[in-house]
């Protein structure tokens, strides 16, 4: 009898899917507050009306959102529920489980606990390579995510090899203008900066920034990440006015989209204050030098 068509249940299921879709759209635009409201509503509607895997998809989006908002403990609790559903429905070595391991690695990356993120990220890559092959864009996404975690631990050779391989797959699959490419140009820029290749880093950051602005708009939080990184690069080159301008832009976006107490906003605010102090010190030093010469 449970398979009997029930119109009221079908309407709730439809509303759950529609609300979830609207939430995803808000999340892509960087409107996190609206995305959270819609996701919570979608979860209420989906609980008991959608199948386990479809419910896991909705829950997982809330986990990703909490991670983005820096609410890491809440994200972890949500991912645990997703994990239970995925393992029960598809098993521990499924593509869906691989995505969950990918996300668990990402959560530790966001927390700055890179060593803890490496095992799940490697497991995701291993499952995906086995099931889809190494040329699949989802495998490339796992490789790119692992690369960021390795970079956080200073394992730069492997990280760079993975990220360059992933970029080749993304470009072949999606063409030159895609979100995956924008994110990974930023990450490759960070890697090049870490090894002291500032010219390459600047070129990569600029490419990433232009692509993000085109794909996401100028006020998206992902734009702020690259603006921050470009500012760090400028500051290390004593290009203080350019650094200050980029920090100011990044900080305004972070404060508006992530809130004033998000770890990224706090880091960017400290960076900005440091750039302002450095610029003031440089101006004072220049004035002193001119006075001595006069």
């Amino acid at each position, binding site marked *: 009898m449970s398979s009997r068509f029930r119109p009221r249940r079908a309407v709730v299921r*439809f509303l759950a*899917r*529609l609300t*979830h*879709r609207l939430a*995803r759209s808000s999340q892509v635009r960087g409107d996190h507050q609206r995305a959270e409201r819609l996701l919570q509503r979608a979860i209420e509607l989906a609980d008991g009306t959608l199948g386990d*895997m*479809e419910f*896991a*998809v909705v829950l*997982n*989006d809330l986990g*990703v959102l909490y*991670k*983005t908002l820096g609410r890491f403990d809440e994200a972890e609790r949500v991912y645990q529920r*997703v994990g239970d559903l*995925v393992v029960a429905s598809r098993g521990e070595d499924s593509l*869906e489980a691989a*995505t*969950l391991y*990918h*996300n668990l*690695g*990402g*959560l530790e*990356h*966001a927390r700055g606990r890179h060593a803890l993120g490496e095992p799940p990220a490697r497991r995701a890559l291993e499952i995906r390579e086995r099931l889809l092959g190494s040329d699949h864009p*989802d495998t490339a*996404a*796992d490789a*790119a*995510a692992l690369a*960021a*975690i390795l*970079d*956080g631990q200073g394992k730069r050779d492997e990280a760079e090899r993975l990220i360059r391989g992933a970029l080749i797959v993304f470009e072949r699959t999606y063409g030159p203008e895609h979100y*995956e490419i924008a*994110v990974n140009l*930023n*990450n490759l820029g*960070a*890697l090049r*900066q870490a090894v002291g290749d500032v010219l390459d880093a600047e070129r990569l950051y600029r490419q990433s920034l232009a692509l993000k602005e085109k794909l996401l708009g100028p006020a998206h939080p*992902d734009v702020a*990440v690259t603006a*921050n*990184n470009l500012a*760090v*690069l400028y*500051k*290390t080159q004593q290009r203080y006015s350019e650094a200050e301008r980029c920090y100011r832009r990044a900080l305004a976006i972070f404060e508006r989209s992530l809130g004033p107490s998000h770890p*990224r906003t706090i*880091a960017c605010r*400290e*960076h900005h204050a*440091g*750039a302002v102090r*450095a610029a003031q010190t440089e101006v004072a030093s220049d004035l002193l030098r001119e006075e001595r010469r006069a």
Partner: protein
Amino acid sequence: MNRLMLVLYGVAAVVTLLYPALSEARIAANHNETLVRDPS
């Protein structure tokens, strides 16, 4: 015949409406984007 067409149109409308939701029914992977820390 008219009733059959009506049913077919109805099914097509529902599928069109639901397809975007169904087509995205996969677990989304997050992105690990590097935010560089100011060394000073």
